[in-house]
């Protein structure tokens, strides 16, 4: 990993900062969202330059996949009135100068503390690498996530579950008019979905000894699920089957934790000889759950047009944009 600064890094940092600002300050929210998606792309390049390929994989899978899809879908549902914003959304008004000063002050203090860092900074690299043999995997990041700090990752899967429970709790949203099935999207799905599943399985498997892992695989699968929903709409409400898969990853992780506490040495203490297999089982279950959760977050809960659910008091049907008029001659 070339640790010294290249011309490449200077250009990348300038682009990142310019894009970061434009993604926040562009008056047209659609432009802001597109710039945010590209910001995610360049951010994964930054993770690569800093020697964090695992993080780069996750950023790429999330940024190019789910995050972009969620933002664009929300913009569409907000419609014209919702997506409109003031001409200078972050313009410096008297009220905002306080915030600006606070942000700049914080930045100055952070710079000072960054400059004060000792030249030699060992971090926890050595202990993590020494214990690697007993962790059951040879990729130190996967070892940290699934063994050293497995308790964090278990709660993190809980956070994902809560997000989808939150979406389910909200009432069904007014349904977008269903565009006609699109043969081209169908082709896209037929070609990409099998490949996505294969590569996701590959990432899950390779995660043990090289950058990859359950979360990156799940984010990829989720993007496949997004394409599926676009081509052939899914409904992922809290039905028994969907709930079972959503809770699968968390339940398997917790069950393994309890089993190791009762039988073995303690909560989430994996015997070194079986650690690799246990981690793979947990990751496989987590990948399926996280993938379905992410697709459910994108699909949300739409009230079928015929559903006689509780009508919205602010039934501003005009705000809901029509997708491109269906049935137009291709």
């Amino acid at each position: 990993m070339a640790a010294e600064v290249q011309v490449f890094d200077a250009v990348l940092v300038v682009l990142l900062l310019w894009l970061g600002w434009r993604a926040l300050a562009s008056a047209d929210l659609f432009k802001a969202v597109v710039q945010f998606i590209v910001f995610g792309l360049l951010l994964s390049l930054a993770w690569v330059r800093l020697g964090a390929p695992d993080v780069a994989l996750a950023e790429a899978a999330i940024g190019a996949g789910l995050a972009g899809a969620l933002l664009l879908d929300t913009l569409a549902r907000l419609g014209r009135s919702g997506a409109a914003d003031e001409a200078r959304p972050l313009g410096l008004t008297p009220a905002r100068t306080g915030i600006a000063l606070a942000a700049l002050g914080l930045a100055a203090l952070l710079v000072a503390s960054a400059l004060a860092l000792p030249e030699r900074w060992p971090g926890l690299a050595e202990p993590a690498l020494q214990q690697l043999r007993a962790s059951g995997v040879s990729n130190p990041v996967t070892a940290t996530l699934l063994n050293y700090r497995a308790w964090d990752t278990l709660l993190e899967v809980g956070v994902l579950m809560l997000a989808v429970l939150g979406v389910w709790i909200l009432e069904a949203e007014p349904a977008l008019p269903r565009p006609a099935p699109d043969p081209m999207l169908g082709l896209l799905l037929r070609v990409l979905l099998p490949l996505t599943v294969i590569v996701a399985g590959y990432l899950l498997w390779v995660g043990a000894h090289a950058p990859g892992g359950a979360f990156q695989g799940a984010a990829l699968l989720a993007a496949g699920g997004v394409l599926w929903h676009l081509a052939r709409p899914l409904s992922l409400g809290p039905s028994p089957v969907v709930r079972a898969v959503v809770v699968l990853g968390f339940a398997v992780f917790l069950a393994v934790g309890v089993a190791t506490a009762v039988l073995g040495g303690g909560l989430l203490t994996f015997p070194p000889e079986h650690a690799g297999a246990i981690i793979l089982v947990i990751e496989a279950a987590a990948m399926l759950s996280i993938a379905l959760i992410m697709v459910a977050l994108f699909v949300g809960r739409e009230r079928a047009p015929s559903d006689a659910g509780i009508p919205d008091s602010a039934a501003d049907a005009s705000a809901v944009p029509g997708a491109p008029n269906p049935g137009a001659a291709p």
Partner: protein
Amino acid sequence: MTGSAALVTVLVVPLAGAVAALLAGRRGAVAAGLLTSALGVAAAFVLAGAVLAGGMQRVAVGGWAVPLGIELRADGLAAAMLLMTAVIGAGIAVYAWRYFGAAGHHDPHDLAAGPPGPAGKAAPASTQWLFWPVWLLAWGALNALYLSGDLFNLYVTLELLGLAAVALVALAGAGAAAAALRYLLLTLLGSMLYILGVELLYAAHQTMDLLQLRERLQPGLSVWLAAALMTTGLLVKTAIFPLHFWLPPAHGSAPAPVSAALSALVVKAGFYLLARLWLDLFGALPGAGVVPALLGALGACAVLWGGVQALRQTRLKAMIAYSTVAQLGYLMIALLLASGAGGAAAGAAGGAMHAGRDPGLPPTGGFVGKFALVEAAVRAGAWWAVAVVLAGSLLAAAFLFHALSRAFADAPADKTSAEVPAAPQLAALALALVAVALAAAGEPLRRLLTVGAAT
């Protein structure tokens, strides 16, 4: 059952209950919730007993030593908070059992606990039962938070708690979406500031374990900046006086059991972390006395301002929300006195005051808490604290009697008071009795709090 086994049980029971509730679906979720509550209370009592007998319980998750691994620790304060959370949680579970209805098809107007927020219509009955998995995950997050000794792990538990609280507030239907969204934005901002502080501490001392950090802590720009960022982040999440504006609308529009859960439990977690940081970690820094003093002052303002606002409220739930803001003020004062005159006295005050919402009249636990607080204040010579606490108590008494008087007055013609089913009344009564019991049981609680107290 050894101490560490009790600790693991306390952690796992709510999470396993959430899995069961989610799998059980609408029909079985209530049963799963009630069963988990019972088991959880039992586990919390066993753990408290183990801590009283055997001192601080420690579990290194995965067998990895700190700083690489995460260590879970149960000292006196943590055990007391777990006990209190379990007991109040059980009360909320019973109340929610009736409020959300056994079969989940709950009629928002069948209870006199005030209409569920301005929306007037709760989330559709089909998703009301999701209260149970979300509430159990929130309880699991609280237990994980009280037991965690690792700063980044605390960040994950705070997020889990935050999202659960947002989902609970959203239960009140579309009208509560704005309140839930405001709460989500602020709690995310609080978490970001908190994790920025954790990053600075990790940069300075290459560890995220609280005890290890306390040994290695040297005053410096990074450490002071980290302390400031983490404190600000937690102040936002705990709705302490200047940053409390998200609390009343979030509670006001939430269903009764949710607003009880939010004000009694969720908001206190942020305060617990502040206490943990300033008593255990940053308190050791030279000249660190200034921050608790500032927090104490904020607490005083919260007590007075919260009390006045509560008086002006017309809706019961809004009054409770502002009384929560006031009550947090007492805790901040307790934190200040704790950092000064020994953790135990004020810890006891804090613990006792959690139990109930009562103004601290003689028979109740609240009184014990306030008395201990005044006693600590007198010993520390902080006369202003004494004045504030007394004034606060008067205000609290005023707005509570204001509410009670309305209850005894004859109902105005147009308002028909719906008949309240037995269970919620019993749950509320039980919690009040617990508050009274605390008055009697003050001594063992005080001893519990001294176990493993840092100072």
